[in-house]
């Protein structure tokens, strides 16, 4: 009698525990099934949906990479200004045209796997403002980087990172 009680209780508890743990990442499976055909649709700019998504994903990753590189320099005892300046310049370069990277039809219901959220098109004017904020902060970071003043560079970098974050908070799928 006692073992049955224990057995039932353990099973019930294990069930609840597993349900709660599994409930965390429900939306990660979203629209990745029909990626093959859907990605082939051609956009007004001549690119396929799949190519557009990949282009912006790669560019944004490169930007993150550059920002990390600059940040790592500042964290070290003796920052290499050349590395920071190169990173700052590349961020300006890589973010050119970002306002055109998210045409209609390249969102989550395009069938292609993307971290872009539908709200980008629902709130498009605000999204585009955030894009231009980022580009402005990147230009400022680039300018400050030429000066070689670590403290000022740190400040400009933080501002730039802030623009990244404020867009991501609303328009990017939360995977962390």
């Amino acid at each position: 009698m006692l073992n049955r009680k224990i057995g039932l209780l353990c099973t019930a508890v294990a069930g609840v525990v597993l349900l709660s743990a599994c409930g965390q990442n429900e939306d990660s499976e979203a629209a990745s099934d029909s990626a093959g055909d859907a990605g082939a649709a051609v956009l007004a700019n001549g690119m396929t949906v799949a190519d557009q998504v990949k282009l912006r994903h790669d560019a944004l990753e490169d930007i993150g990479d550059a920002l990390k590189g600059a940040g790592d320099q500042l964290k070290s005892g003796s920052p290499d200004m050349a590395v920071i300046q190169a990173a700052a310049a590349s961020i300006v370069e890589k973010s050119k045209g970002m306002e055109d990277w998210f045409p209609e039809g390249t969102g989550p219901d395009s069938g292609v796997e993307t971290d872009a959220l539908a709200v980008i098109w629902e709130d498009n004017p605000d999204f585009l403002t955030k894009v231009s904020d980022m580009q402005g902060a990147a230009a400022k970071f680039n300018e400050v980087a030429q000066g070689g003043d670590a403290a000022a560079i740190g400040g400009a970098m933080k501002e730039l990172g802030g623009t990244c974050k404020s867009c991501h908070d609303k328009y990017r799928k939360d995977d962390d």
Partner: protein
Amino acid sequence: MTTSPEHHVVWDWTVRLVHWLMVILVLLLWWTAEEGMMDWHKRCGLTMLGLVIFRIIWGFTGSWTARFVPMFRRLGSLGSYVRDLKNGSHKPVFGHGPLGILSVFALLGALSVQVGTGLFSVDVDGLESGPLAIWVSFSTGRDIADIHELNFDILSTLISLHVAAILVYQFILKDNLIPPMVTGKRPVSDFAASTVPTITAGFWAFVLSAGIASGSVYAVLHAG
């Protein structure tokens, strides 16, 4: 460590202190991450790093119930232990029983992975990163951050199972496990065997273990 006629000391003070500090830190670490308070998340993470390193070293230098080798040996009795649980003849064990030992390794393992990946994680904006992330690329740091997040689900599942098991032991098996984790003591009458090891937490063992743990945290703080 003295043993009064009525009580045995089962858990030395460092085991108990580290255990409860880990409980508090896990909650703080989860909450600071949820709220984006990364400064505090890092401070708590480094503290947890120190505790984990200490506990692993203490598993070789500490009192008998803290040591890993006796735990490994006790795993051999897992089969008979589970049989006793099933046919209602469970008796309290001095230190971790074999099921508890599996739990110790699983939890310590998951916690180590959590802290370890945290050291190298990079966030999506490239702005916030762990103290050792300077040694990995952005892309690697992002992958490690993904593991850091996934592993937290594993860790919290294990913690839930641990809490559930303790409740089952406490209220259904009537095996009093919670008070001893605070006071360290259990009544002599709890144990069938007449000889139980006298556990001692050596002073110099503690100094050495704490020294290595603190030194490691210091090294991480000054990396790169």
